């Protein structure tokens, strides 16, 4: 029993003055903690209530808490090494809770864990293992921050982080060292006091720094709205989104104070990565600075000094930030909330945006093309009109109905549906789902489009919808809920994957296809395997460096495809280069917007480029051409 020779040493017989000093220090430390934390808590609690929020779905909340907080799943999965180091520190702290309370209690002569008792001995050893892991973890993080210096942590070295790291390391070291002394040794007393001082210094630092996340983020994760990019309903006639401090809700304020400034959101942001001024971390910190300086329940505009309107309208709503965030911040509702505030009040003035809004106010599609052009396409392809007898309503979307290349994707998918014997019809009065105006924050036009489409769908007695556009899928299924009950909808990748074994297979299975995950299919809908399964019928599917939930945006989302020229590098070019660099002979897409953005980007290249095909086109290529007199063969 070698272990028994190591027993945690605890000083004995604390003098009265020591007890008084300890009590005084504890009171001072707690007071310093509360002086700041009380203010933060007050700001959060004074913020307005979250419309539509309820504590239901406890199962989901508990699961998120266990997974993201206790098991540190997001922290580790998205940045494995630093994530693990962080988890070790976190778990160390958890294990240490009992030890710390006992440590202080011992100072008053009331320890409840005996180093020699069975449970106490076991627990101190148990905590020692965590203390060791924690010390290694914090040392690694220190080395990363001060020597590796990843740029996402900011150009400026944070000495406060260094000091915190020192405190944590010292806490662990003073604990572990006490295994090597005896109760009566003066060193034990020194170690005890050193440990105590570290604790009492650490406590007030928490609310004054980003280490506030220690206290807040468990609550942030537990209380999150849930879902992905859940845009809250507007609350009555005077709510236009995030206009001023009075519009900041408790959740927004809680999330703003929870930010740990890790920069994962910036690291994955397509805007930040292509030289735009938008940096999602700065948006959140801007809200925090506003809360600090101005506070909630005020009329000072949120956009201006603390966050720039220009930055907010550079967001593609790809959701990489929200997906990455380890402390439960929901960036998209904040970003879109700020846009809503600017658009719903008319503060945002942009020629392209105004044109888009006016087009969708009076017309049927975001491209501003007469609906008669869509009819011509439907006639040419001989698509049947949906009359209630067909199984599926084939939703064309703006790109499928008007964009020449989008039409090719729809036509290819329709041929595959015919081949599979699935009946479908199209709607003559389909309008834009409102995706671009929803993301740009125009609630008026979005409501008009959602309501008119919902009414039309109800009249047409549509049972199931299938579409080639992930943006249509998301908007119909999630965003329309505010105005009615949309019929179930699925993306063509999900439809095709169900029939994977009936799809024609390409003869030469050697074609290398690099698949680009659309944001609105992947992060928004959690569909990753289906499009790959479909593409796999046509060749060998490979992933680009950033794939699946870490996929890099094409630049079209959030209504940005309809706005003017980007500043800095074009997002579409950055991603297209990454896809080309894989050496694949084909780029596979599953979203007509991505397809269009890459077509544009590849078109600008003077080098030979891979072919660009939607997964439906990849499948349709191998259909027997003669056996099925599809619309293609009718073309002269």
């Amino acid at each position, binding site marked *: 029993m070698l272990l028994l020779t190591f027993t945690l040493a605890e000083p004995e017989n604390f003098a009265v003055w020591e007890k008084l000093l300890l009590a005084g220090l504890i009171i001072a430390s707690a007071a310093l903690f509360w002086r700041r934390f009380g203010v933060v808590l007050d700001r959060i609690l004074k913020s307005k209530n979250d419309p539509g929020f309820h504590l239901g779905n406890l199962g989901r909340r508990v699961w998120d808490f266990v997974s993201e907080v206790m098991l540190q799943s997001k922290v580790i999965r998205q940045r494995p090494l630093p994530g693990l180091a962080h988890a070790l520190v976190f778990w160390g702290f958890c294990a240490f809770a009992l030890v710390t309370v006992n440590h202080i209690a011992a100072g008053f002569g009331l320890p409840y864990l005996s180093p020699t008792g069975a449970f106490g001995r076991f627990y101190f050893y148990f905590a020692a293992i965590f203390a060791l892991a924690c010390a290694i973890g914090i040392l690694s993080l220190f080395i990363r921050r001060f020597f590796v210096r990843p740029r996402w942590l900011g150009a400026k070295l944070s000495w406060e982080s260094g000091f915190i790291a020192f405190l944590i390391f010292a806490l662990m070291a003073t604990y572990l060292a006490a295994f090597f002394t005896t109760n009566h040794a003066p060193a034990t007393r020194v170690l005890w006091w050193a440990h105590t001082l570290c604790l009492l210094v650490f406590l007030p630092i928490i609310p004054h720094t980003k280490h506030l996340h220690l206290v807040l983020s468990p609550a942030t994760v537990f209380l999150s709205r849930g879902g992905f990019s859940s845009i809250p309903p507007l609350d009555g006639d005077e709510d236009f989104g995030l206009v001023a401090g009075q519009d900041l809700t408790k959740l927004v304020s809680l999330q703003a104070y929870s930010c740990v400034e890790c920069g994962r959101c910036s690291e994955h942001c397509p805007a930040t990565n292509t030289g735009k001024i938008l940096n999602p971390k700065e948006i959140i910190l801007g809200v925090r600075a506003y809360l600090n300086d101005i506070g909630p329940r005020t009329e000072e505009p949120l956009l201006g000094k603390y966050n720039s309107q220009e930055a907010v309208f550079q967001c593609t709503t790809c959701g990489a930030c929200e997906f990455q965030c380890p402390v439960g911040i929901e960036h998209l509702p904040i970003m879109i909330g700020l846009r809503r505030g600017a658009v719903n009040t008319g503060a945002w003035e942009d020629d392209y945006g105004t044109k888009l809004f006016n087009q969708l106010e009076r017309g049927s599609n975001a491209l501003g093309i007469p609906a008669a052009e869509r009819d011509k396409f439907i006639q040419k392809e001989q698509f049947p009109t949906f009359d209630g007898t067909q199984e599926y309503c084939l939703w064309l979307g703006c790109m499928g109905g008007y964009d*020449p290349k989008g039409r090719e994707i729809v036509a290819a998918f329709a041929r595959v549906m015919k081949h599979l014997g699935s009946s479908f019809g199209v709607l003559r009065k389909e309008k834009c789902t409102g995706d671009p105006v929803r993301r740009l924050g125009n609630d008026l036009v979005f409501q008009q489009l959602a309501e008119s489409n919902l009414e039309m769908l109800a009249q047409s007695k549509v049972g199931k919808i299938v579409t080639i556009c992930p943006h249509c899928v998301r908007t119909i299924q999630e965003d329309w809920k505010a105005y009615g009950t949309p019929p179930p909808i699925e993306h063509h990748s999900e439809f095709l994957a169900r029939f994977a074994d009936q799809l024609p297979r390409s003869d030469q299975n050697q074609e290398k296809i690099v698949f680009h995950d659309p944001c609105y299919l992947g992060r928004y809908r959690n569909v990753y395997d289906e499009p790959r399964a479909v593409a796999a019928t046509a060749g060998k599917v490979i992933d680009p460096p950033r794939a699946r939930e870490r996929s890099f945006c094409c630049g079209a989302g959030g209504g940005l495809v309809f706005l003017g020229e980007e500043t800095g590098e074009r997002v579409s070019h950055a991603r297209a280069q990454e896809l080309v660099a894989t050496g694949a002979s084909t780029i596979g897409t599953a979203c007509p917007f991505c397809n269009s953005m890459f077509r544009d980007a590849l078109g600008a290249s003077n080098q030979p480029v891979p072919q660009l095909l939607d997964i439906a086109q990849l499948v349709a290529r191998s259909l027997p051409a003669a056996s099925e007199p599809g619309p293609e063969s009718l073309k002269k």
Partner: protein
Amino acid sequence: MSGILVVLEERDGRVSRASWEALAAGRHLAGNSNQPVSTVVLGANTEATAADTAAKSVARVIRIAHPLLERYTPDAYTAALQQLIQSESPAHVVFPHTYQVRDFAPALAARLGQVFISDVVAIGDGPVFTRQLMQGRLTGNYRHQGNGPCLVSVQAGAFRADAVPAGTAEILPFDPQIDDAAIRTRPGEPFRGSAQTLDLGSAQLIVAVGRGIKEAENLPLVQDLAGALGAEIAASRPICDNGWLPMERQVGSSGQTVAPKLYLAVGISGAIQHLVGMKGSQCIVAINKDPEAPIFEVADYAIVGDLFEVVPAITEALKAAK
């Protein structure tokens, strides 16, 4: 209440083409009822235009000359024509559908207690006047009722200017009473839109070039064509991205939106980003060697062929036509 008056306009001292078309419409109207067709010229100096129309096959030329008619104002024109119409009591008064006519004819009709049937594209028996509705998606057939004179204007190009045969006609003066004080608007000298800054949006003719041009060195080919047409040059995004033409000439979703009378697309495949910027053009001509290029879906005229052969041939043919 009989006879047809055709009110002519002058341009650069001569009777305008649109006015001859209006005369042709007036003669067509008379053809159904055998009424005499007279022309009306008005202005401060109307010798030349009166002589122009006197050399055509018309019953009479009524010449209204008054110093207050020198520069067009709706008040003076309305007053002069109201007096003429009241003294002549014609069955029909025909105008060319010009910006000037649109400015006073509705008021003139109202002053006469009448309704003006504007922008007529065809005249059938009855007479029935056909107009375009819903921006050309429908046509409507109008009939005039009641006893007063019926005022109509005809759309440019609806009747053939050269359909009016030559002849000789008597020129009769008509002197209206126009009170200076009754003229309430003060028109300024006409001026050209500023040529300083490029405004593709208001260009009437555009030649646009796309990736099919391959090299910057080939641009003069297209510039020659634009020169021969008197058109502005525009481009799709890759051309401007490459810096071959300035960004301000880019047509499309991230550039300018244009709606010219003619959009001639050379070597442009027609990505949606481009189409949304030019789909409002009145006439689209596309030249591309790929018969499947989406630009052909929006084109009125398509030439499938090698632009390096087709474009010089068009430039040549245009020069020959002038």
